Protein backbone atom coordinates (compact mmCIF):
# COMPACT_ATOMS: atom_id res chain seq x y z
CA UNK A 1 0.00 0.00 0.00
CA UNK A 2 2.71 2.42 0.87
CA UNK A 3 4.90 1.62 -2.09
CA UNK A 4 2.49 2.66 -4.84
CA UNK A 5 1.67 5.83 -2.90
CA UNK A 6 5.33 6.75 -2.71
CA UNK A 7 5.78 6.06 -6.40
CA UNK A 8 2.83 8.25 -7.30
CA UNK A 9 4.12 11.00 -5.08
CA UNK A 10 7.49 10.77 -6.77
CA UNK A 11 5.95 10.99 -10.21
CA UNK A 12 3.94 14.10 -9.26
CA UNK A 13 7.01 15.81 -7.90
CA UNK A 14 8.92 14.89 -11.07
CA UNK A 15 6.25 16.45 -13.24
CA UNK A 16 6.29 19.57 -11.08
CA UNK A 17 10.04 19.72 -11.45
CA UNK A 18 9.75 19.48 -15.21
CA UNK A 19 7.20 22.30 -15.34
CA UNK A 20 9.26 24.56 -13.14
CA UNK A 21 12.31 23.80 -15.20
CA UNK A 22 10.63 24.66 -18.48
CA UNK A 23 9.32 27.87 -16.99
CA UNK A 24 12.70 28.95 -15.72
CA UNK A 25 14.86 27.59 -18.59
CA UNK A 26 18.08 27.36 -16.68
CA UNK A 27 21.02 26.51 -18.90
CA UNK A 28 22.85 24.16 -16.60
CA UNK A 29 23.52 23.37 -13.01
CA UNK A 30 20.04 22.88 -11.59
CA UNK A 31 20.28 23.12 -7.83
CA UNK A 32 18.11 21.88 -5.06
CA UNK A 33 16.02 19.47 -7.09
CA UNK A 34 17.74 16.25 -6.30
CA UNK A 35 16.02 15.38 -3.07
CA UNK A 36 12.96 13.82 -4.66
CA UNK A 37 12.67 10.17 -3.86
CA UNK A 38 11.86 7.80 -6.65
CA UNK A 39 12.08 10.50 -9.28
CA UNK A 40 14.44 9.91 -12.17
CA UNK A 41 16.28 13.14 -12.69
CA UNK A 42 19.07 13.41 -15.25
CA UNK A 43 22.16 14.83 -13.63
CA UNK A 44 23.34 17.44 -16.10
CA UNK A 45 26.45 18.25 -14.11
CA UNK A 46 28.19 15.01 -15.21
CA UNK A 47 30.38 15.81 -18.17
CA UNK A 48 30.62 14.40 -21.66
CA UNK A 49 34.10 14.24 -23.10
CA UNK A 50 34.24 15.92 -26.52
CA UNK A 51 36.56 14.78 -29.29
CA UNK A 52 37.15 16.17 -32.76
CA UNK A 53 37.86 13.73 -35.60
CA UNK A 54 38.84 14.24 -39.24
CA UNK A 55 37.40 12.08 -42.01
CA UNK A 56 40.13 12.51 -44.61
CA UNK A 57 39.51 11.20 -48.13
CA UNK A 58 41.98 10.80 -50.93
CA UNK A 59 39.68 11.18 -53.95
CA UNK A 60 40.04 9.06 -57.06
CA UNK A 61 42.99 10.15 -59.20
CA UNK A 62 42.08 8.37 -62.44
CA UNK A 63 38.70 7.48 -63.86
CA UNK A 64 37.52 3.95 -63.26
CA UNK A 65 37.51 1.50 -66.18
CA UNK A 66 34.20 1.10 -67.93
CA UNK A 67 32.19 -2.03 -67.31
CA UNK A 68 31.35 -4.09 -70.47
CA UNK A 69 27.78 -2.72 -70.63
CA UNK A 70 29.02 0.85 -70.24
CA UNK A 71 31.64 0.31 -72.95
CA UNK A 72 29.03 -1.07 -75.37
CA UNK A 73 26.65 1.80 -74.69
CA UNK A 74 29.26 4.51 -75.10
CA UNK A 75 30.37 2.92 -78.39
CA UNK A 76 26.76 2.92 -79.60
CA UNK A 77 26.28 6.58 -78.65
CA UNK A 78 29.49 7.59 -80.43
CA UNK A 79 28.41 5.77 -83.56
CA UNK A 80 24.99 7.43 -83.53
CA UNK A 81 26.57 10.84 -83.05
CA UNK A 82 28.95 10.26 -85.94
CA UNK A 83 26.16 9.18 -88.26
CA UNK A 84 24.02 12.19 -87.41
CA UNK A 85 26.80 14.75 -87.56
CA UNK A 86 27.42 17.24 -90.37
CA UNK A 87 30.75 17.58 -92.13
CA UNK A 88 33.27 20.11 -90.90
CA UNK A 89 34.88 22.78 -93.12
CA UNK A 90 38.03 20.72 -93.50
CA UNK A 91 36.15 17.64 -94.70
CA UNK A 92 34.10 19.71 -97.14
CA UNK A 93 37.29 21.20 -98.56
CA UNK A 94 38.75 17.71 -98.99
CA UNK A 95 35.72 16.57 -100.96
CA UNK A 96 35.80 19.75 -103.01
CA UNK A 97 39.46 19.21 -103.90
CA UNK A 98 38.84 15.60 -104.89
CA UNK A 99 35.99 16.68 -107.13
CA UNK A 100 38.11 19.36 -108.79
CA UNK A 101 40.97 16.92 -109.34
CA UNK A 102 38.64 14.41 -110.87
CA UNK A 103 37.25 17.09 -113.18
CA UNK A 104 40.71 18.21 -114.22
CA UNK A 105 41.82 14.73 -115.05
CA UNK A 106 38.76 14.04 -117.21
CA UNK A 107 39.35 13.56 -120.93
CA UNK A 108 37.18 16.45 -122.05
CA UNK A 109 38.46 19.00 -119.55
CA UNK A 110 38.02 22.60 -120.51
CA UNK A 111 39.77 25.01 -118.18
CA UNK A 112 37.51 27.86 -119.27
CA UNK A 113 34.52 26.05 -117.80
CA UNK A 114 36.02 26.33 -114.34
CA UNK A 115 34.64 29.14 -112.22
CA UNK A 116 36.68 32.33 -111.95
CA UNK A 117 37.59 31.82 -108.32
CA UNK A 118 38.69 28.21 -108.69
CA UNK A 119 40.80 28.64 -111.79
CA UNK A 120 44.12 29.48 -110.26
CA UNK A 121 43.69 27.51 -107.06
CA UNK A 122 46.17 24.85 -106.23
CA UNK A 123 44.49 21.52 -105.64
CA UNK A 124 45.45 18.90 -103.01
CA UNK A 125 46.58 21.53 -100.54
CA UNK A 126 44.20 20.11 -97.95
CA UNK A 127 45.43 16.59 -98.55
CA UNK A 128 49.00 17.74 -97.98
CA UNK A 129 47.97 19.26 -94.70
CA UNK A 130 46.36 16.01 -93.65
CA UNK A 131 49.45 14.04 -94.54
CA UNK A 132 51.64 16.43 -92.56
CA UNK A 133 49.37 16.05 -89.53
CA UNK A 134 49.44 12.29 -89.78
CA UNK A 135 53.24 12.31 -89.82
CA UNK A 136 53.25 14.38 -86.65
CA UNK A 137 50.78 12.00 -84.99
CA UNK A 138 53.01 9.02 -85.78
CA UNK A 139 55.90 10.75 -84.06
CA UNK A 140 53.81 11.34 -80.90
CA UNK A 141 53.98 8.60 -78.25
CA UNK A 142 51.25 8.52 -75.59
CA UNK A 143 52.04 7.89 -71.93
CA UNK A 144 50.74 4.58 -70.58
CA UNK A 145 47.68 5.02 -68.38
CA UNK A 146 48.65 5.46 -64.74
CA UNK A 147 47.59 2.38 -62.86
CA UNK A 148 49.24 3.11 -59.55
CA UNK A 149 51.12 0.48 -57.65
CA UNK A 150 49.42 -2.88 -58.07
CA UNK A 151 49.15 -5.11 -54.98
CA UNK A 152 50.24 -2.23 -52.81
CA UNK A 153 50.24 -2.47 -49.06
CA UNK A 154 47.49 -0.63 -47.28
CA UNK A 155 49.81 2.03 -45.90
CA UNK A 156 50.46 3.49 -49.34
CA UNK A 157 48.32 6.40 -50.44
CA UNK A 158 48.78 5.65 -54.15
CA UNK A 159 47.01 2.28 -54.14
CA UNK A 160 43.66 1.90 -55.98
CA UNK A 161 43.86 5.17 -57.89
CA UNK A 162 40.38 4.72 -59.34
CA UNK A 163 38.59 4.71 -55.97
CA UNK A 164 38.44 7.12 -53.04
CA UNK A 165 40.38 6.04 -49.95
CA UNK A 166 39.82 6.85 -46.30
CA UNK A 167 42.53 7.48 -43.71
CA UNK A 168 42.54 5.33 -40.55
CA UNK A 169 44.90 5.57 -37.60
CA UNK A 170 45.42 3.45 -34.56
CA UNK A 171 44.31 4.98 -31.30
CA UNK A 172 44.40 3.80 -27.72
CA UNK A 173 40.91 3.57 -26.30
CA UNK A 174 40.84 2.21 -22.79
CA UNK A 175 42.94 -0.93 -22.57
CA UNK A 176 43.15 -1.69 -26.29
CA UNK A 177 44.42 -0.16 -29.52
CA UNK A 178 41.75 0.25 -32.17
CA UNK A 179 41.66 1.42 -35.76
CA UNK A 180 39.52 4.51 -36.22
CA UNK A 181 39.44 7.90 -37.92
CA UNK A 182 42.08 10.22 -36.42
CA UNK A 183 40.68 11.99 -33.37
CA UNK A 184 41.88 14.01 -30.42
CA UNK A 185 40.24 15.47 -27.30
CA UNK A 186 38.82 18.98 -27.42
CA UNK A 187 40.48 21.69 -25.37
CA UNK A 188 38.62 24.68 -24.04
CA UNK A 189 38.85 27.82 -26.12
CA UNK A 190 39.21 26.23 -29.56
CA UNK A 191 36.63 25.28 -32.15
CA UNK A 192 35.96 21.63 -32.92
CA UNK A 193 37.27 22.15 -36.46
CA UNK A 194 40.68 23.19 -35.13
CA UNK A 195 40.56 20.11 -32.92
CA UNK A 196 40.11 17.96 -35.99
CA UNK A 197 42.99 19.76 -37.73
CA UNK A 198 45.14 19.15 -34.66
CA UNK A 199 44.20 15.47 -34.74
CA UNK A 200 45.76 15.21 -38.20
CA UNK A 201 48.92 17.05 -37.33
CA UNK A 202 49.29 15.08 -34.09
CA UNK A 203 49.42 11.75 -35.90
CA UNK A 204 53.08 10.76 -35.92
CA UNK A 205 54.79 10.59 -39.26
CA UNK A 206 51.83 11.88 -41.30
CA UNK A 207 52.77 14.64 -43.73
CA UNK A 208 49.48 15.70 -45.27
CA UNK A 209 48.00 18.77 -46.94
CA UNK A 210 44.25 18.84 -46.55
CA UNK A 211 41.33 21.10 -47.30
CA UNK A 212 38.41 20.93 -44.89
CA UNK A 213 35.13 20.96 -46.80
CA UNK A 214 33.13 23.04 -44.31
CA UNK A 215 33.00 24.53 -40.85
CA UNK A 216 30.18 22.35 -39.58
CA UNK A 217 30.59 18.69 -38.52
CA UNK A 218 29.11 16.04 -40.76
CA UNK A 219 28.51 13.33 -38.17
CA UNK A 220 28.41 12.47 -34.50
CA UNK A 221 29.35 9.29 -32.64
CA UNK A 222 28.14 9.15 -29.06
CA UNK A 223 28.64 6.36 -26.55
CA UNK A 224 28.05 5.99 -22.87
CA UNK A 225 30.64 4.68 -20.46
CA UNK A 226 29.97 1.53 -18.46
CA UNK A 227 28.62 2.09 -14.93
CA UNK A 228 31.96 1.45 -13.24
CA UNK A 229 33.75 4.18 -15.23
CA UNK A 230 30.81 6.53 -14.82
CA UNK A 231 30.89 6.25 -11.05
CA UNK A 232 34.66 6.27 -10.77
CA UNK A 233 35.51 9.18 -13.01
CA UNK A 234 32.18 10.94 -13.25
CA UNK A 235 32.28 10.63 -17.02
CA UNK A 236 28.91 9.90 -18.64
CA UNK A 237 30.18 9.28 -22.08
CA UNK A 238 32.07 10.47 -25.09
CA UNK A 239 30.95 12.45 -28.13
CA UNK A 240 33.05 12.41 -31.29
CA UNK A 241 32.36 15.07 -33.94
CA UNK A 242 33.53 14.27 -37.49
CA UNK A 243 34.71 16.82 -40.03
CA UNK A 244 35.16 16.06 -43.72
CA UNK A 245 38.41 16.83 -45.46
CA UNK A 246 40.02 16.10 -48.78
CA UNK A 247 43.69 15.55 -49.61
CA UNK A 248 45.09 18.42 -51.67
CA UNK A 249 48.59 18.63 -53.06
CA UNK A 250 50.95 15.68 -53.55
CA UNK A 251 50.19 12.24 -52.18
CA UNK A 252 51.83 11.62 -48.81
CA UNK A 253 54.45 8.92 -48.24
CA UNK A 254 53.42 5.89 -46.18
CA UNK A 255 53.44 6.50 -42.43
CA UNK A 256 53.45 4.02 -39.55
CA UNK A 257 50.15 3.27 -37.83
CA UNK A 258 48.10 4.87 -40.61
CA UNK A 259 46.17 3.10 -43.35
CA UNK A 260 44.40 4.13 -46.52
CA UNK A 261 41.42 1.84 -47.00
CA UNK A 262 38.62 1.55 -49.47
CA UNK A 263 35.00 1.67 -48.30
CA UNK A 264 34.59 -2.04 -48.94
CA UNK A 265 37.54 -2.81 -46.64
CA UNK A 266 36.29 -0.68 -43.74
CA UNK A 267 34.43 -3.51 -42.05
CA UNK A 268 37.70 -5.41 -41.56
CA UNK A 269 39.21 -2.67 -39.46
CA UNK A 270 36.45 -0.76 -37.69
CA UNK A 271 34.19 -1.88 -34.89
CA UNK A 272 30.62 -2.57 -36.09
CA UNK A 273 28.90 0.04 -33.90
CA UNK A 274 31.43 2.69 -34.92
CA UNK A 275 31.13 1.78 -38.61
CA UNK A 276 27.35 1.95 -38.41
CA UNK A 277 27.53 5.54 -37.20
CA UNK A 278 30.11 6.53 -39.80
CA UNK A 279 28.38 4.96 -42.82
CA UNK A 280 25.64 7.67 -43.18
CA UNK A 281 28.08 10.43 -44.07
CA UNK A 282 30.45 8.38 -46.22
CA UNK A 283 29.34 8.81 -49.80
CA UNK A 284 29.80 5.71 -51.88
CA UNK A 285 29.48 7.09 -55.39
Amino acid at each position, binding site marked *: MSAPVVKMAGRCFYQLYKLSNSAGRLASGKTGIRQFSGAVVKNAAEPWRLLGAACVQRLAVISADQRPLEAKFSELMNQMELERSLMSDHELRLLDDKERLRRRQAVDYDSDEEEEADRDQDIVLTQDLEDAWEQRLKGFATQPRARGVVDARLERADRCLAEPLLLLTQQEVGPERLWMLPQTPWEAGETLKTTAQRALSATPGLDLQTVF*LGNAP*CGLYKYRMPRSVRDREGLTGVKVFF*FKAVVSGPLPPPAPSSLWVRQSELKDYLKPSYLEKIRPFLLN*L
Partner: protein
Amino acid sequence: MSLLIRQLQVSLTQQSILTNQASALLQRVTSSLPAPLCRLAPTNERHYRTMPTHGIGRWKYLLPKEVPRKKRDKLQMKPIRGSTATEYGSLSVKVSGYDMTVVEHYSQYIHNLCNRLGVRVSESYALPTKSTEVMLMQEQGTKMYIDALLKTHERIVQISSMTATLCPTFMDVVLQNQPEGVQLSVKEHVERDFLERFKARPQLEGLMAQVNQRD
Protein backbone atom coordinates in the same frame (compact mmCIF):
# COMPACT_ATOMS: atom_id res chain seq x y z
CA MET B 1 -26.30 71.43 -94.68
CA SER B 2 -26.32 71.17 -98.44
CA LEU B 3 -22.59 70.45 -98.37
CA LEU B 4 -23.15 67.58 -95.96
CA ILE B 5 -25.88 66.09 -98.07
CA ARG B 6 -23.71 66.27 -101.19
CA GLN B 7 -20.83 64.50 -99.42
CA LEU B 8 -23.05 61.77 -98.11
CA GLN B 9 -24.54 61.25 -101.52
CA VAL B 10 -21.13 60.97 -103.13
CA SER B 11 -19.92 58.41 -100.62
CA LEU B 12 -23.09 56.42 -101.00
CA THR B 13 -22.88 56.31 -104.74
CA GLN B 14 -19.25 55.24 -104.52
CA GLN B 15 -20.16 52.29 -102.35
CA SER B 16 -23.28 51.72 -104.44
CA ILE B 17 -25.70 51.31 -101.61
CA LEU B 18 -28.64 52.97 -103.41
CA THR B 19 -31.43 51.09 -101.75
CA ASN B 20 -34.69 52.49 -100.52
CA GLN B 21 -33.50 51.86 -97.03
CA ALA B 22 -30.42 53.90 -97.64
CA SER B 23 -32.34 56.82 -99.07
CA ALA B 24 -34.78 56.68 -96.17
CA LEU B 25 -31.81 56.62 -93.81
CA LEU B 26 -30.33 59.58 -95.58
CA GLN B 27 -33.48 61.60 -95.13
CA ARG B 28 -33.62 60.63 -91.45
CA VAL B 29 -30.02 61.68 -90.94
CA THR B 30 -30.48 64.98 -92.67
CA SER B 31 -33.65 65.78 -90.79
CA SER B 32 -32.26 64.81 -87.36
CA LEU B 33 -29.02 66.83 -87.57
CA PRO B 34 -29.31 70.29 -85.98
CA ALA B 35 -28.01 73.18 -88.04
CA PRO B 36 -24.77 74.19 -86.23
CA LEU B 37 -23.45 70.56 -86.02
CA CYS B 38 -23.45 70.08 -89.76
CA ARG B 39 -20.18 72.01 -89.91
CA LEU B 40 -18.30 69.03 -88.25
CA ALA B 41 -15.88 67.00 -90.35
CA PRO B 42 -17.25 63.57 -91.35
CA THR B 43 -14.43 61.66 -89.56
CA ASN B 44 -15.88 62.54 -86.16
CA GLU B 45 -19.02 60.60 -86.89
CA ARG B 46 -18.86 57.01 -85.71
CA HIS B 47 -21.92 55.16 -86.83
CA TYR B 48 -23.53 52.42 -84.83
CA ARG B 49 -22.78 48.78 -85.68
CA THR B 50 -26.09 48.20 -87.41
CA MET B 51 -25.47 51.09 -89.78
CA PRO B 52 -24.31 49.91 -93.19
CA THR B 53 -21.60 52.52 -93.08
CA HIS B 54 -20.15 51.21 -89.86
CA GLY B 55 -16.38 50.85 -90.09
CA ILE B 56 -16.18 53.19 -93.06
CA GLY B 57 -12.80 54.81 -93.20
CA ARG B 58 -10.89 52.04 -91.34
CA TRP B 59 -7.49 51.45 -92.96
CA LYS B 60 -4.94 50.56 -90.25
CA TYR B 61 -5.99 46.90 -90.27
CA LEU B 62 -4.83 46.62 -93.85
CA LEU B 63 -1.21 47.49 -93.02
CA PRO B 64 1.29 44.61 -92.31
CA LYS B 65 1.72 43.79 -88.59
CA GLU B 66 4.86 45.38 -87.15
CA VAL B 67 6.27 43.85 -83.94
CA PRO B 68 7.51 46.62 -81.62
CA ARG B 69 11.26 46.23 -80.84
CA LYS B 70 11.75 45.65 -77.10
CA LYS B 71 14.60 47.70 -75.72
CA ARG B 72 16.70 45.39 -73.49
CA ASP B 73 17.39 46.75 -70.04
CA LYS B 74 20.94 46.75 -68.74
CA LEU B 75 21.57 43.68 -66.59
CA GLN B 76 21.00 44.52 -62.95
CA MET B 77 23.11 42.94 -60.25
CA LYS B 78 21.17 40.84 -57.75
CA PRO B 79 21.95 41.92 -54.18
CA ILE B 80 24.91 40.07 -52.68
CA ARG B 81 23.98 38.32 -49.45
CA GLY B 82 26.37 38.37 -46.56
CA SER B 83 27.16 35.28 -44.53
CA THR B 84 25.54 34.60 -41.17
CA ALA B 85 26.57 32.25 -38.38
CA THR B 86 24.65 29.32 -39.90
CA GLU B 87 24.59 30.15 -43.61
CA TYR B 88 27.06 31.06 -46.28
CA GLY B 89 26.36 34.23 -48.29
CA SER B 90 26.53 34.56 -52.08
CA LEU B 91 28.93 31.97 -53.48
CA SER B 92 30.02 31.44 -57.05
CA VAL B 93 30.96 27.96 -58.22
CA LYS B 94 33.26 28.35 -61.24
CA VAL B 95 33.81 25.45 -63.63
CA SER B 96 36.49 25.90 -66.29
CA GLY B 97 38.22 23.72 -68.84
CA TYR B 98 39.22 23.27 -72.47
CA ASP B 99 36.40 20.91 -73.51
CA MET B 100 33.15 22.85 -73.76
CA THR B 101 30.69 19.93 -73.67
CA VAL B 102 32.24 18.48 -70.52
CA VAL B 103 32.35 21.89 -68.80
CA GLU B 104 28.73 22.66 -69.70
CA HIS B 105 27.46 19.26 -68.63
CA TYR B 106 29.26 19.53 -65.31
CA SER B 107 27.82 23.00 -64.62
CA GLN B 108 24.34 21.68 -65.50
CA TYR B 109 24.91 18.78 -63.10
CA ILE B 110 25.84 21.18 -60.31
CA HIS B 111 22.77 23.33 -61.00
CA ASN B 112 20.45 20.31 -60.93
CA LEU B 113 22.07 19.06 -57.74
CA CYS B 114 21.47 22.45 -56.10
CA ASN B 115 17.81 22.33 -57.14
CA ARG B 116 17.40 18.90 -55.67
CA LEU B 117 19.16 19.69 -52.40
CA GLY B 118 17.22 22.91 -51.87
CA VAL B 119 20.18 25.24 -52.35
CA ARG B 120 18.88 28.41 -53.98
CA VAL B 121 20.60 29.26 -57.26
CA SER B 122 20.35 32.96 -58.12
CA GLU B 123 22.08 32.93 -61.51
CA SER B 124 23.85 30.59 -63.90
CA TYR B 125 25.90 32.17 -66.68
CA ALA B 126 29.03 31.89 -68.80
CA LEU B 127 32.05 34.14 -68.77
CA PRO B 128 33.69 35.14 -72.07
CA THR B 129 35.89 32.42 -73.57
CA LYS B 130 39.62 32.98 -73.23
CA SER B 131 41.84 31.88 -76.13
CA THR B 132 45.41 30.79 -75.54
CA GLU B 133 47.81 30.48 -78.46
CA VAL B 134 50.52 27.88 -78.10
CA MET B 135 53.54 29.06 -80.07
CA LEU B 136 56.44 26.86 -80.97
CA MET B 137 59.91 27.96 -81.86
CA GLN B 138 61.02 26.99 -85.34
CA GLU B 139 63.82 24.45 -85.59
CA GLN B 140 66.02 26.68 -87.73
CA GLY B 141 65.72 30.31 -86.82
CA THR B 142 64.24 32.40 -84.07
CA LYS B 143 60.73 32.91 -85.44
CA MET B 144 57.79 31.49 -83.49
CA TYR B 145 54.85 29.98 -85.24
CA ILE B 146 51.41 29.11 -83.92
CA ASP B 147 51.15 25.46 -83.02
CA ALA B 148 47.70 25.28 -81.45
CA LEU B 149 44.82 27.40 -80.23
CA LEU B 150 43.36 26.42 -76.84
CA LYS B 151 40.07 27.90 -75.71
CA THR B 152 39.24 28.01 -71.99
CA HIS B 153 35.51 27.94 -71.31
CA GLU B 154 34.13 29.09 -67.97
CA ARG B 155 30.71 28.57 -66.48
CA ILE B 156 29.50 30.01 -63.20
CA VAL B 157 26.66 28.86 -60.96
CA GLN B 158 25.85 31.57 -58.45
CA ILE B 159 24.35 30.30 -55.19
CA SER B 160 22.49 32.70 -52.96
CA SER B 161 22.22 30.69 -49.76
CA MET B 162 23.61 27.43 -48.48
CA THR B 163 23.39 26.17 -44.89
CA ALA B 164 26.68 25.38 -43.20
CA THR B 165 25.59 21.82 -42.37
CA LEU B 166 24.87 21.02 -46.02
CA CYS B 167 28.16 22.42 -47.31
CA PRO B 168 30.52 19.45 -46.59
CA THR B 169 28.08 16.96 -48.16
CA PHE B 170 27.50 19.16 -51.19
CA MET B 171 31.23 19.71 -51.73
CA ASP B 172 31.92 15.99 -51.34
CA VAL B 173 29.35 15.05 -54.01
CA VAL B 174 30.57 17.75 -56.38
CA LEU B 175 34.24 16.76 -55.96
CA GLN B 176 33.62 13.04 -56.35
CA ASN B 177 31.77 13.65 -59.61
CA GLN B 178 34.31 16.04 -61.06
CA PRO B 179 35.27 14.91 -64.58
CA GLU B 180 38.80 14.88 -65.96
CA GLY B 181 40.19 18.08 -67.42
CA VAL B 182 37.83 20.36 -65.51
CA GLN B 183 38.84 22.77 -62.74
CA LEU B 184 36.43 23.67 -59.98
CA SER B 185 36.60 26.66 -57.67
CA VAL B 186 34.11 27.84 -55.04
CA LYS B 187 34.50 31.33 -53.65
CA GLU B 188 32.59 34.31 -52.33
CA HIS B 189 30.73 36.36 -54.90
CA VAL B 190 31.98 39.95 -55.06
CA GLU B 191 30.80 42.90 -57.16
CA ARG B 192 34.01 42.71 -59.18
CA ASP B 193 32.97 39.23 -60.35
CA PHE B 194 29.71 40.71 -61.62
CA LEU B 195 31.54 43.41 -63.57
CA GLU B 196 33.75 40.78 -65.20
CA ARG B 197 30.76 39.62 -67.24
CA PHE B 198 30.69 42.80 -69.30
CA LYS B 199 32.95 43.61 -72.22
CA ALA B 200 35.62 46.20 -71.64
CA ARG B 201 34.87 49.52 -73.34
CA PRO B 202 38.25 51.20 -73.74
CA GLN B 203 36.93 54.41 -75.38
CA LEU B 204 34.42 55.00 -72.61
CA GLU B 205 37.03 54.29 -69.98
CA GLY B 206 39.43 56.74 -71.65
CA LEU B 207 36.78 59.46 -71.67
CA MET B 208 35.91 58.82 -68.02
CA ALA B 209 39.57 59.02 -67.09
CA GLN B 210 39.82 62.33 -68.95
CA VAL B 211 36.74 63.70 -67.18
CA ASN B 212 38.08 62.62 -63.79
CA GLN B 213 41.46 64.11 -64.54
CA ARG B 214 39.91 67.45 -65.36
CA ASP B 215 38.01 67.51 -62.02
